[in-house]
């Protein structure tokens, strides 16, 4: 199925191949360069191995430090320009500071509970792109719930005056993350439930995510605090 149709009328998410691997590799190299893991060699697996032993506070500090990676969002957008233009046109609002997400393996580590992106106040016209900076180990990725099922849960919870209530939050067990290789990404709409689960590995998982929408479509609650104007070449 064509990606746009899949995102709107199908599962609500799709695995894609990064179009411009040169930019994508530069993005990964820039991350390695910026990340302050002085006792790691300058390659992604060495950095991940050091991260896997870090405390929650150390990981959090790294994530705050990475807010200075201020051209990350443009690099992400420019690694998939044809797809993004086909979805939103050339005039965009893109996430001002894209996110690098670092997940440490093992029990007791923070996990992203099931949620819809819309909960943050992004517009219904937003798409989210998520990609790991390495091949994913088993169960270390993100699981996605078909939008039909996601929508049924919204209906059920809304009837009870809730959004992202216990029905959704208790979905974490028995989910199967989507496997991805380096050079692949997932794109999804803001009504698709997703989250991650505990995984076992010697390596931390490192991924980025960014959000974008057409400039010509309405915003919801996110504004200049979160988005910036960007025009594709």
């Amino acid at each position, binding site marked *: 199925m064509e990606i746009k149709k899949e995102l709107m009328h199908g599962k609500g998410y799709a695995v894609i191949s990064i179009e411009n691997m040169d930019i994508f590799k530069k993005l990964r190299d820039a991350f390695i360069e910026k990340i302050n893991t002085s006792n790691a060699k300058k390659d992604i697996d060495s950095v991940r191995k050091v991260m896997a032993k870090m405390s929650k506070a150390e990981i959090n500090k790294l994530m705050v430090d990475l807010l200075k990676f201020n051209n990350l969002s443009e690099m992400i957008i420019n690694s998939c320009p044809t797809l993004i233009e086909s979805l939103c046109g050339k005039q965009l609002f893109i996430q001002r500071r894209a996110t690098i997400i670092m997940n440490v393996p093992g029990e007791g580590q923070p996990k992203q509970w099931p949620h819809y992106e*819309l909960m943050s106040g992004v517009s219904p016209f937003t798409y989210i792109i998520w990609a790991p900076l390495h091949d994913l180990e088993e169960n270390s990725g993100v699981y996605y719930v078909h939008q039909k099922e996601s929508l049924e849960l919204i209906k059920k919870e809304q009837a009870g005056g809730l*959004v992202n209530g216990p029905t959704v939050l208790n979905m974490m067990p028995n989910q199967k993350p989507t496997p991805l290789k380096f050079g692949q990404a997932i794109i999804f709409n803001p009504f698709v439930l997703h989250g991650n689960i505990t995984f076992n590995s010697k390596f931390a998982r490192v991924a980025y995510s960014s959000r974008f929408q057409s400039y010509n479509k309405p*915003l*919801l609650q996110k504004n*200049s605090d979160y*988005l910036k104007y960007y025009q594709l070449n």
Partner: protein
Amino acid sequence: MTTATVTTDINIGPFRIPSNGQNMIMNNYAQRNNLVIELVIPEPLMSNALATVQWLHEERKLTKVILSSIHQLPVNQDRIDNLLKNMEDVEFHFALEGISGRGKVFLSETIKEAKMFIEAQTIDSTKKNWLSLYEIMIKNKK
């Protein structure tokens, strides 16, 4: 060498931020960016001319000015022109957007971006629920 923060009207473009909230935002930004605040400038409500800032700049020679958002910059062209002329040498910081720079080009581009956001359509989330937002996506997504 004076770094100042500026509080303004509670209505800041699409945001509604009380002045103590503005101070929290700017103080947090200053702390994260190792900036030491020496002056706190309250601008009057219902004005985005930044006239007090410009008046104080004449005497205090401000080097850095921190605002909560790009939406606190002037909108009227004559006020924009005054700001560009009088404060070209001052480094401006916008805490919510996390951007900074100085000079006419930077300020003009920032004002232009704020205008783009003001001109963009918005959905009033107080009048919607999740299902109606889903319907909007399905009906209108390009």
